[in-house]
């Protein structure tokens, strides 16, 4: 994409200095490696307060509400959905009124089946109500996409919720239920991203049960399955020499959940991290040295080589699986582009999940 191309696209640049992924990689993926001058810093020891922390934290540079769902339709065919709302502050400082507000919102939605992958993106400026998030009652929206709670929505589980999004050739609507509370990632919600202190606040709700309708090319089908939401905000989550990440959220058949990622560095080293969440909701961090993530097969999309198949092992837990994508072409060709799609895995453990590959 040329730099002088028009506004809306280039706009994603606003949200993350954009997507000349190659250029971006010089400063960490999508500009996440910039310094955080003027923005609030992420420090350990924060006490999370709900529902307040479900809402936006505009004093931090970036923030997202990120939901993925692994579903099956009535014929048993697998499919996946993604719904993400990003917030980025163009400037630090007090929040401007109306159009003067410095928040910029971007949203991605995708629906993936074995043979199809549909996605769309939206942009909006803050301050006027076109996009935003409220904590109580919970609502995150941009245009007619929304993730919305009810009066009765429980702040600890962030459920029930309704979720909807649409593009030119797809749309979906889900209801999300959960009976276990949020899970704080990392060290009680403090997620360190490098040795030099880059970090984010990070919590998840991996226990959603999802049910609803997915429509591709005007053919609606009922879907059911499980979903995982990540909430994360930061002012500088990546170190300047970190080029991107490979991230997985896994729903094990046992009911346990596993979040795994590795941050890739320019020097070829990586920074793996994991969190094992038992079916009852207890978490246990997994040491980076105990995680083996090996790309097994690559797909070539949009001129990039993407490792869409992984061999993953955690020897201390006798865990060894092979992850395969539902659709290797789950490329998000949006303003800033990445790979994000449903996977299934087998080995010592079986299950489904989502894989995200950025910075390629």
């Amino acid at each position, binding site marked *: 994409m040329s*730099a*002088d*191309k*028009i*506004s*809306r*696209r*280039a*706009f*994603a*640049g*606003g949200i993350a*200095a*954009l997507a000349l992924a190659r250029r971006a990689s010089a400063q960490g993926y999508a500009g996440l490696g910039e310094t955080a001058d003027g923005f609030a810093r992420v420090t350990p020891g924060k006490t999370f307060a709900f529902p307040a922390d479900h809402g936006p934290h505009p004093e931090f540079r970036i923030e997202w509400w990120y939901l993925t769902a692994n579903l099956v339709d009535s014929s048993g065919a697998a499919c996946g959905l993604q719904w993400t709302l990003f917030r980025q502050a*163009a*400037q630090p400082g007090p929040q401007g009124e*109306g*159009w*003067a507000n*410095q928040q*910029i919102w971007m949203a991605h939605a995708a629906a993936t089946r074995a043979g199809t992958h549909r996605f*769309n993106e939206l*942009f*909006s*400026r803050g301050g*006027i*109500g*076109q996009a935003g998030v409220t904590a109580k009652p919970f609502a995150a*929206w941009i*245009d*007619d996409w929304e993730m919305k709670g009810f009066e009765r929505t429980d702040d600890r589980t962030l459920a029930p919720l309704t979720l909807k999004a*649409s*593009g*030119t050739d797809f*749309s979906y609507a889900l209801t999300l239920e959960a009976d276990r509370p949020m899970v704080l990632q990392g060290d009680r919600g403090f997620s360190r991203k490098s040795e030099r202190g880059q970090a984010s606040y990070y919590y998840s709700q991996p226990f959603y049960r999802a049910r609803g309708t997915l429509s591709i090319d005007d053919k609606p089908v009922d879907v059911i399955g499980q979903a995982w939401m990540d909430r994360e905000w930061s002012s500088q989550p990546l170190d300047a020499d970190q080029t991107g990440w490979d991230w997985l959220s896994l729903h094990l058949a046992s009911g346990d959940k596993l979040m795994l990622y590795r941050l890739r560095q320019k020097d070829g080293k990586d920074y793996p991290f994991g969190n094992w969440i038992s079916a009852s909701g207890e978490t246990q961090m997994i040491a980076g040295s105990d995680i083996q993530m090996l790309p097994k097969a690559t797909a070539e999309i949009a001129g990039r080589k993407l490792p869409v198949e992984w061999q993953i092992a955690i020897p201390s837990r006798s865990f060894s699986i092979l992850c395969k994508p539902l659709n290797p072409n789950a490329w998000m060709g949006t303003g800033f582009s990445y790979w994000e799609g449903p996977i299934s895995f087998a080995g010592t453990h079986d299950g489904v999940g989502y894989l995200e590959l950025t910075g390629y």
Partner: protein
Amino acid sequence: MRRALWVLAVLLSHWRRHRMQFATLLIGLIAATALWSGVQAINQQARNAYDRAAATFGGVRTAMLVAPNAATFPQELFVKLRRAGWPVSPVLEGRVQINGHSVRLLGIEPVTLPVDVGNAPRLGASDLNSFVAPPGQTLVARETLSDLQETEGAAPPISSGAKLPPLRVQPQLVPDVLVVDIGVAQRLLNKPDQVSRLLIGKPKGKPAPLASVVGEQLQRVEPTAETELERLTDSFHLNLTAFGLLSFFVGLFIVNSAVGLAFEQRLPMLRTLRACGASARLVNTVLVVELVALALVAGLIGLVCGYFIAAALLPDVAASLRGLYGAQIPGQLSLQGEWWLAGIGISVAGALVAAATSLIKAIRMPVLATAQPRAWQQRQRRWLILQSAAACMVFAVALLLLHYGQSLIAGFGVLAALMLGAALMLPAFLDILLLTGQRLARGPLASWFWADSRQQLSGLSLALMALLLALAVNVGVSTMVETFSRTFVGWLNGRLAADVYISASDNAQGTAIRNWLKERSEVQAILSGGRAEAQIQGQPVELLGLPDHALYRERWPLLETAPRAWTQLVPGNAAFISEQLSRRLNVRVGDVIEVPAPGGSWELDIVGIYADYGNPKGQLAVNVAALIRHFPQTPQTRIGLIVAHDKIPGLIAALQKQFALDDRSVADQATVKAESIRIFNRTFAVTSALNAFTLGVAGIALLTSLLTLANSRLPQLAPLWAIGLTRPRLAAIELTKTLSVALFTALLAVPLGLVVAWCLIAIVNVKAFGWRLPFHVFPLQLIELVAVALLASLLAALLPMLRLARMQPANLVKVFANER
């Protein structure tokens, strides 16, 4: 390849020995390409400008939502629609004053702006941030920047005192527009949370029906493929194109005669080439290659000339378009690659067409020359008959077009067919004339004179046809322009009734000025006017409020009236309609027209039709008091004064001093008149310039034809010399012949030109502008043109004649020596 190069070298050697011929060929091609591409460059420039205007953030090329009363509406509707899935983007539009200039201010929202909105400012990632984030940016076209006398980076204040964000040049932007972020625009225009319109982008799903989201508050306006501006200016560009085309053809006439002669002369050379073993295919290929190469060279030179022609004419064109249609065309020529390619293409294609007959003749040529009797008479007769038959067919087409054609193109079609027919008919006509002369001639020399003139006809006919066309167009255009300017001046005299015109900046100032004027003894009458806008049948229509004053009744020119028209106007239920609008709406005196007014529909009896030259918008004239009753928002800022003439300068000076009015806000009648006339003169400046170019090219055509003919005429002249006519005498006879043929042509051009003028006035103008002028003939002008044509012919004939008069007898003798 080497062989082909040698053949090419041999073919090219011909031009070295016939430089004049070579120059003729090149001049023809260059003239054709230059005028054509010059006109194309201007048209392209204008079209690009219209496109830019149309595409600017929701011009008519984009579907949009607007409030039914065309007022601004709350921004909350934008959010509502977005949240209902409508891909809309808000725009707030208004006008601001900067350094005394009034400029359009557009507030846009770059994040939601539809990508397909056209040449929106191209913002890179960091650009977007600097556009949106404080202090923001004001995007501006370079020409507007210099109009405002500002520099990039400056942040000039507007009349309210607020400062614009720093100016930044955006080359693709339309002139006279400032683009800022919508938030900035709301602040500058003092319209917090207000929006003028919502541009509709590509829908991403199935949004809820409009009414279910915003009720009746907004309505959808569909995009139109052709803008009002394009429709209005079409005729103007068609006009230019017609001239370009005419010059192109005249240029091709030159090429045709030069190539024809050159090929004729080179036939023996081609035979020798073939006899010496160059194959027919090789020779023919090289002939085509040579022609194409020449066309490429000439095309390139022509394009450069065309560029300069366009650059020279563009300021006038831009001025006329602005004056006539309010269209903003940048005065700086910017050309695209396609223009160069098209120009080269047209040069090559033109050369090939012009050379087609000669090429075919060369290609079909047998190696052995078959002795053909020079039955020129027979050939010429056949050719005359064929051409006359073609002329009749073309005339028939003209009649059909005149009868059935409705459009402007049909109007031009009639013109083109008439001229082509007349041109085709010309040789036959001249032949008959000369034959008559021959029959009436007494004495051998006179007989020879006529007969020889006839024989020369085929050689000269193309040049004469070009001359006829150029002259006829000249007569036509001059007649039209003259008619126009006289009609216009007369009309303006009636229309500009008041002595002094004042335009106050707002109603308060208007009232203050009126009060002040009441105290001035030199002011005999204060005439308040007013203007409002309405939409009738989807067209913007101006409503002009006229004061009820005897001066208007006496002087305001009306084309058609009902009885007691002025009296009927006073109560406010009657109107005059402008000629253009009456044609567009097909409304006559006695009809009733409904005008949507803020308070409801306003029914107006049409009691008069008036000429409103130069106004692109349709207009209705009503009583000013009635206008203000129906359109209470009408600014009461326009004031006309009747003043004792010797007091005018003093009054104006006093007004300027008292109310700080600039030259544009207060002016006397003479100034307004001079300004109007200046604009109108510029309207036809381009036409006149092209006219002169065309006549020049026709002159060149005549000169080159005569020059080439001069050489081939030696065998005809040598015997006369041999039997005792002196060379100067021969030259004089030749000159007389040329001049008499040119005179005949010029005389024929006069009636043809008048027909052209009639077509322009009665067909083209009416279709193009909506007004019809009275048809006048200006005999002096016609005589002048005929004289100019003769002078041109004289100049063209002079050089070859001088050469003949001074020719060494040896050259004449050689004719006999070389005679086969």
